C-alpha cells in the first residue's frame, strides 16, 4: 500500500531540525564505517610503531601494496581463475543435482527410502575427511577440487529442498484437492512455491560449504588456486600475500551471499516481514 503524502510534507520536513533526523537515518551506517576505520587505523599503527611484529600481522597498507603488485604482474589471475572454475563447476553441479533430487526425495516416499541412508551418512560426515580418497581417485588437479566443492554444497541444498517439499501445510493440500488438483498440479501449485524459502536457505548454506571446500581442497593437494596461494605464502611467512588471498575469498563470499539474499527477497515479496 502506498502512503499518500501529506500535502505539506515538504514544509513539515523543512521545519524539523536537520541534525537528529539525519542522524536517525544514517546512524547504523555511520557507526559501522567508523568502527571499521578505527580498527584499520589501530592495525596500521600497531605495525608502524612495532607494537607487534608485522611479519605476523601484516598491515593494511602492506596488504594493499602487495595486492596491487600481484594484480600488476598478473601472477594472481591464474589462482583466481582456477578457484573460480572449481567453484562454478562444483557449486553448479550441486545445484543441478541437489535441487531436482531433493524435490524427488521430498515428493516420493520410495525414492527417499532408497537414498535417505546415504544422504544422512554423508551429510553427517565432514566432507573434508573424504579429501584423501578423492585425491586418490581424481588426482591433484582441478577435478578433485570440483568434487570436494560439489560434496560440500550438495548436501545442505539437498536436505533443505527435501524438508521444504516435505513440510507442505496439510490445509493447502486439502484446498488443492478440493479444487480437483492432480498430483502434478499439487506439486506445481502448492509444494514447489511453499518450499522456495527453504530451498533458497539451502543454497545460501551450500555456498559457505563450497568456499570451505575450495580453500581446504587447494591447501591439501594442489598447484594453483587461492587456497594454494594462501597455504604456500603462509609456509614462507609471506603474511601480506596470505591476507590478500583471504580478503579475495571473503569478498567473493560476501558478494555471492548478497546476490542470493537479493534473489530471496525477489521470491519472498509475499512474506509478512518483507521489506522492499
Amino acid at each position: 500500500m502506498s502512503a499518500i503524502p501529506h500535502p505539506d510534507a515538504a514544509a513539515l520536513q523543512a521545519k524539523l531540525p536537520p541534525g537528529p533526523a539525519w542522524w536517525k537515518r544514517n546512524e547504523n551506517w555511520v557507526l559501522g564505517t567508523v568502527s571499521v576505520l578505527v580498527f584499520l587505523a589501530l592495525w596500521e599503527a600497531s605495525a608502524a610503531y612495532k607494537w607487534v611484529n608485522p611479519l605476523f600481522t601484516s598491515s593494511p597498507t602492506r596488504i594493499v601494496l602487495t595486492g596491487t603488485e600481484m594484480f600488476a604482474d598478473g601472477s594472481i589471475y591464474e589462482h583466481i581463475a582456477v578457484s573460480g572454475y572449481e567453484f562454478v563447476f562444483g557449486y553448479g553441479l550441486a545445484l543441478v543435482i541437489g535441487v531436482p533430487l531433493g524435490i524427488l526425495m521430498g515428493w516420493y516416499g520410495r525414492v527417499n527410502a532408497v537414498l535417505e541412508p546415504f544422504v544422512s551418512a554423508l551429510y553427517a560426515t565432514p566432507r573434508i575427511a573424504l579429501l584423501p580418497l578423492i585425491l586418490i581417485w581424481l588426482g591433484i588437479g582441478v577435478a578433485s577440487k570440483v568434487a570436494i566443492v560439489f560434496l560440500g554444497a550438495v548436501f545442505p541444498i539437498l536436505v533443505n529442498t527435501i524438508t521444504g517439499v516435505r513440510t507442505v501445510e496439510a490445509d493447502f493440500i486439502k484446498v488443492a484437492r478440493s479444487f480437483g488438483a492432480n498430483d502434478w498440479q499439487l506439486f506445481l501449485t502448492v509444494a514447489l512455491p511453499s518450499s522456495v524459502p527453504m530451498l533458497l536457505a539451502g543454497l545460501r548454506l551450500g555456498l559457505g560449504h563450497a568456499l570451505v571446500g575450495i580453500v581446504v581442497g587447494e591447501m591439501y593437494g594442489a598447484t594453483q588456486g587461492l587456497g594454494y596461494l594462501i597455504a604456500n605464502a603462509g609456509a614462507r611467512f609471506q603474511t601480506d600475500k596470505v591476507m590478500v588471498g583471504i580478503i579475495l575469498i571473503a569478498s567473493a563470499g560476501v558478494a555471492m551471499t548478497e546476490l542470493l539474499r537479493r534473489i530471496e527477497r525477489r521470491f519472498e515479496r509475499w512474506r509478512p516481514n518483507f521489506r522492499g
Partner: protein
Amino acid sequence: MTASQQAKLDARQVSLTRYNDRTKQYLEVLRDIDLQVFEGELVTIVGPSGCGKTTFLNAVDGLIKLTAGRILVDNCQVSGPGPDRAFVFQNDCLFPWRTVLRNVAYGLEIQGKLPQREMTARAREIVELVGLQGFAEHYPHELSGGMRQRVNIARALVMEPKLLLLDEPFAALDAQTREFMQVELLKILARARTTALFITHQINEAVILSHRVAVFSARPARIKEIIKIDLPPVRALALKHEPKFVEIERHIWRLIEEEAVRPDMAAAA
C-alpha cells in the same frame, strides 16, 4: 427467496464409520443421514461439537468416502471432488504466495479450461462481487480477517458451483466482523444465485442465514430435527432481537442441549 423444488443436494441414508489408525478403533460418525438442499436455498447444519458436521460436509465435497448411502448433486452421484461443488474452508487457507486475484483464480487454473485472460477477467469480476475492488493485487498477509474470508468465499464462487459448502467460515473472526460478514454473505449469495450448505456452532448465525436449519444429534450423528426458519426473506441484523427469532433460537438450543448432555458423549470424546 422462493426455493424451487429441485434438489441440488440429495443425501440418502448416508452412514460413515471411520477407523482410527492410532487407537485401532472403529468410530461410527454418521448414521442414516437424509438431507435435501433445494435450488437457491441456504441450509445450515448445527449440532453438538465433535458430532460429525464437518465430516458430513467433507463427504459431500467428495474428500471422504461413505460407508453406506448415496450423495447426489444435481442427480449425479458424488465420487470425489468436482467442479459442481466448491468448499469454503474454516481457516481461510489462502495461498500466501498468491495475490488476492491469483488466489481467486486458483480453481480455474487447476481446471485449465479457460484461456489465461478469461480466467483473470472472471476472477476480477468475483473479487468485485465480494467487495474487494482495489485489493486484487494485495497479498493475503496485507488483509484483515474479514477480507481474507471474502477471498476464501470468492475462490469458491468463481467456480460457479451448483452447491457451495461452507465449513464454519466465520469461526476465526471477531464478534463484530462476524455479524457483518453474515449479512454480507447473504448479499453475496443472492448476487451469485448460489445454493449453499453451511456449518456453524453459533445458533443465531444459523438462524439469521438459513431457510432451514438441520440439527445433528451427538455422535453417531443423525438428523434430530429440520427446522424451517419462518422469517422475512430479506434478513438484517436487527432481526436477531425479534421475539420470533429468539424463540427459534431457544428451540434449537434446547435440541442441542439434549444432545450435549447425553452420557455417551463423554465416553466418545
